[in-house]
């Protein structure tokens, strides 16, 4: 039941993101998608992930995007311009691929018992700081690099 709800939310909202034309609405709908995604994670018993999801996506990323939206003047022009000329082709290809893939998706048979029984925080943290120490460090470097890059790109030229 929850699953159906969330699934609907995800797909519906996602679709809207693609189809709607008012950009702010799109951003908010994206947030909605993320929220539903968090729900899904809960269903799958990954509270921590869900938490991160809410924090990072619904929080940080959405905000960032909204900033982006604000900074760049949005021209809402006619529908024809709003989609690219190649739309039909794109649709065709996407469908051609999506259908079999989604079909194949069902080849994963095992059943999942949605349970709130969680407590995945500790193991997650543990593995993150022991086994995955290295990627973790790398990831931190990545964030740093991204930071530097972002700054370099947006800072005004010094006189």
């Amino acid at each position, binding site marked *: 039941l929850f699953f159906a709800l969330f699934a609907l939310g995800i797909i519906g909202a996602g679709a809207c993101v693609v189809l709607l034309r008012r950009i702010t609405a799109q951003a908010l709908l994206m947030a909605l998608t993320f929220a539903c995604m968090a729900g899904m994670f809960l269903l799958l018993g990954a509270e921590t992930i869900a938490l991160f999801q809410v924090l990072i996506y619904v929080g940080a990323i959405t905000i960032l995007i909204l900033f982006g939206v604000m900074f760049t003047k949005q021209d809402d022009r006619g529908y024809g311009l709003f989609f*690219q000329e*190649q739309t039909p*082709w*794109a649709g065709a*290809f*996407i469908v*051609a*691929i999506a259908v*079999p893939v989604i079909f194949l998706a069902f080849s994963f048979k095992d059943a999942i018992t949605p349970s709130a029984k969680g407590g995945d925080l500790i193991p997650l943290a543990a593995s993150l700081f022991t086994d995955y120490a290295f990627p973790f460090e790398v990831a931190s470097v990545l964030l740093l690099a991204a930071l530097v890059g972002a700054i370099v790109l947006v800072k005004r030229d010094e006189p």
Partner: protein
Amino acid sequence: MIQNVWLIPAFPLAAFLVNALFGRRWLKRWTGPVAATAIAASALVAIGVFLEVRAGAASTIVPLYTFISVADFHVDVAALVDPLSSAMLLVVTIVSLLVHVYSIGYMAHDHGFWRFFTWLPLFVFAMLILVLGDNYLVMFVGWEGVGLCSYLLIGFWFERPEPAGAAKKAFIMNRIGDWGFTIGMITTFLVFGSMNFVDVFERVAKDPPAQGVLSLICLTFFLGATGKSAQLPLYSWLPDAMEGPTPVSALIHAATMVTAGVYLVARSTPLFDAAGPVLAVVGGVGALTAIFAATIALVQFDIKRVMAYSTVSQLGYMFLALGVGAPIAAMFHLITHAFFKALLFLGSGSVIHGVGNVQDMRQMGGLKSKMPITYWTMVIAGGALAALPPLAGFWSKDEILGSAFKNGYPLLWTVGVFTGGLTAFYVTRAIWLTFHGQPRDHHLFEHAHESPRVMTVPLLILAAGSVLVGFIGFPPDHGFIHAFLGPSVEAAHAGAAVEHGTDWAEFLTLAAISTAIGIGGILIGLTMYARGRPDPAAVARAAGPVYGVLVNKYYVDELYDRRFVDLAKAFAGAAWAFDIHIIDGLVNRLGWAIKLTGSGLRRAQTGIVGNYALSIVAGLLLVMVVYGGYATGWLGR
């Protein structure tokens, strides 16, 4: 002496080198004497060799060094000294000597003096190689060598277009003949495993190969001979060759080089004898050429051209002789012809020189008084050519006709005899127009003068020759020459006629007939040109078309020069166009096509991110399909 036979070609070669290196700067006028003395030296040696051979020295091979030796193919540079070659040596060296001496006077005022006396010894050298070679390859070397020299000497006055053209024509026509020679020579090797005359003739005697192969060999050789000896169909270069200095015409295009073909066939007598039918061809071509050329000679006005056509015709006689299986007769005529034809040329040269480089007989006339020596020598030579007894030409030509008759070729005989008449007519005509009657060009007549001694002396010597040489063939069929040459040429059917002595009756009748016809020719000539009735012009008009055809030499030159050459050029042009547009064109088009594809693909690079993403997705689809294909196996594994 025989062991030193290599000296004979060595002297001219030395002369050539000396004159070539030092002639232009230092020797200048002295090149003439240098060359002449060199030739004289080799003439002496030649005489020595000749005497030894005459004394009965066996035919010997004098090897010099290995020329080419690859696997089973081995050829030495070696000299074969036997009666045939020694006789040839003698003729060549002596005539050359005389011509050299004569040229010193004739070319005296030419700015290319040194060049002339560089090429002339080179020619003699090559000719001697040709004569001496003990195998076909070395002979071929000399063969091409003389061709080269004739090219150089015909084109001696290269500033003018005609000589240059004539030279090229001569060389190329010879090349066509040489093509035959090459094929013949190589086939010979394949069949007999050797190119040495001795081996080849032995083998052909022991186990003659298939008739067809043999005929092929002989025919190709004969093709070569026709090229060199100006027989049909490759004769037309010789008249043009008259563009060269007259001594050259005398030496190369009358006495020596052009007879190389005859020499070749005579050399290969054993082969030709073995290949019966080919002989008939040889004889036929010879006879045809003889009459063909003689008819043209009837109406020419350029004195040298008359002589040229006469040479062609006389060579025809020689081949006729070979064809009827009388090589000795051929050689005999070759020798006599060398003398009187050389004399005729030198004589006309002396005339031309005397009147200042005019060759058209219509401008001459009455020169008898001005240049008596020339006149009388010319008359003798003419007589010899017209085969008046007892001059040289009589014996040799009569022997040819005789053997033609005896060996059962009546048709050839008739042709020969008739041609004899024509010969007599045109020679008379030539001499009369030149020396008798009223001078037709007074200015020219005034300045005419007898040539200096350096030129007249050779004339006299040759005249003596033209009178006497004939007697080496006396008595007919059993003269010195037959005994001498017999062993070397008639190895196949040695001394066929030797058993029964000379058949005088037969000889006399035949001789009478031919002589009569000859005299007839002379008389007609005299009446026409001396008495003027029937008036030549009238005759010409009466003959109408025939006359036209003759004057235009049967339009052969037109045919060759225009039709063939134009065709060839057109073809070559087409080939080139093909090269540029098809072969090369394809390559360029390929490049062009590739570039077109490039700019086509380039348009796919729209610069729009969306399209790029699309192509990525498309690629994904593609990859999935292919994977699926391999997985499900409908793409095979």
